[in-house]
């Protein structure tokens, strides 16, 4: 190896050192932009880095799975449990959302009817085990001021009336029970009649005792007439879906599709008092 002149080399070293310290001072972390040289170097190396990373990923991923199988299995278990938990939570939130939607409608209705009725909100906590179309059980009772024969509605329309009350529950006879009969009238024509469960037509009601010559048509609305002991006037019941003439030719029968979806009753309102 060639000999070198020590003082000259020392001078170069000193210059380089001073230069190095100076550049260090001006190239701290707070620099706003890289120099051209730095950018070129990065651009030069980047494709190789990218290729190397690609190769490493391709080569290592199968081996990684083998080497880390225990960790992956554990992670899998954890993630599965997490997914189940989140699904449960999601379902719960969905329930809350729907409940919120229903309660809002109920509240709107309650506010709307505030001038007419004193209303108590209640939740449906049970149904008749033999056939839940007939009676439902509410989570309000005597302590909430509920009394026998109070009328139960929701924002869609009439549901039924209270037939039994305990301290904290109330059993409601719905419109579909055989024992139910509600004095009603066709809203458009004011034709009176009685609404009861439709014979042989599940999920429908029928309005009977209509004279053969009265104007009852499909699409007309049926509301309570206020005649009788329990139901106040003007509560929506349903819409006429079919009109049939009795074989005797003397009376008509209107089949009514109720406004209330009795399959999905969850929150209701009890009319405490008609103001």
């Amino acid at each position, binding site marked *: 190896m060639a000999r070198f002149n020590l003082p000259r080399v020392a001078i170069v070293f000193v210059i380089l*050192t001073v230069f190095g310290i100076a550049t260090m001072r001006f190239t701290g*972390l707070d620099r706003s932009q890289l120099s051209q040289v730095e950018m070129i170097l990065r651009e030069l190396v980047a494709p190789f880095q990218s290729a*190397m990373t690609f190769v490493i990923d391709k080569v290592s991923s199968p081996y990684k799975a083998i080497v880390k199988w225990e960790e992956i299995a554990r992670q899998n278990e954890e993630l599965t449990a997490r997914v189940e938990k989140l699904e449960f939570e999601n379902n719960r939130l969905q329930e809350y959302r729907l409940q919120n939607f229903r309660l809002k409608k109920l509240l709107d209705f309650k506010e709307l009817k505030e001038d007419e009725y004193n209303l108590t909100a209640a939740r449906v906590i049970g149904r008749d085990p033999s056939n839940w179309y007939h009676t439902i059980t509410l989570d309000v009772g005597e302590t909430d001021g509920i009394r026998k024969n109070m009328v139960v509605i929701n924002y869609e329309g009439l549901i039924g009336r209270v037939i039994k009350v305990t301290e904290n529950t109330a059993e409601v006879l719905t419109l579909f029970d055989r024992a139910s009969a509600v004095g009603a009238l066709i809203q458009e024509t004011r034709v009176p009649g009685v609404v009861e469960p439709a014979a042989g037509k599940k999920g429908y009601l029928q309005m009977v005792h209509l004279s053969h010559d009265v104007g009852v048509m499909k699409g007309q609305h049926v509301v309570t007439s206020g005649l009788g002991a329990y139901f106040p006037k003007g509560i929506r019941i349903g819409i006429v879906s079919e009109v049939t003439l009795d074989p005797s030719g003397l009376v008509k029968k209107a089949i009514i599709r109720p406004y209330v979806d009795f399959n999905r009753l969850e929150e209701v309102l009890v009319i405490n008092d008609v103001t």
Partner: protein
Amino acid sequence: MSPEVRVIWHIVGWAFFSIVALVLETSFFSRLQLWGAMPDLMLIAVVFTGLFRGPLYASSLGFIFGLLEDLFMGRLIGVNALSKMLIGYLAGMGKGHVFKENPFVPLIAVFSMTIANELAIWVLTQLAGTASQINSGFFLMVVPVAVYNSILGLAAYAVIYRWVGEK
């Protein structure tokens, strides 16, 4: 091989090595860490070059390699250039004083020079007036790097010996 061709061959070889080392350090060894440490391939090359070719060659190489690293990282430009220049010089002083065939030579040289390099970086960052985190857990950070460098250094020793060794 004529001396001129030999010089050109060396320049091309080191240029290629520096790019490969940068790529490996940033994309390969970054995923193959040992106790959270990544090796410094250029430092290993500088140390061995010092042992085989002396202080001038190794310190020049160290300065260029360090500068490349600094430019690539884009901050505190000069810190690695100066530290590696110093390491090249220190390692070069060992030329003619160590028995190169002894396998402990690369191990001890790389280990000690790695520690020295990190110390130099710490001192230089202080000189540059930059608040440095090297203080905290300095040895916890440096020792794994030194061990990693030593292991790789041992493996690479034969290659470097062949590449820069005097025949």
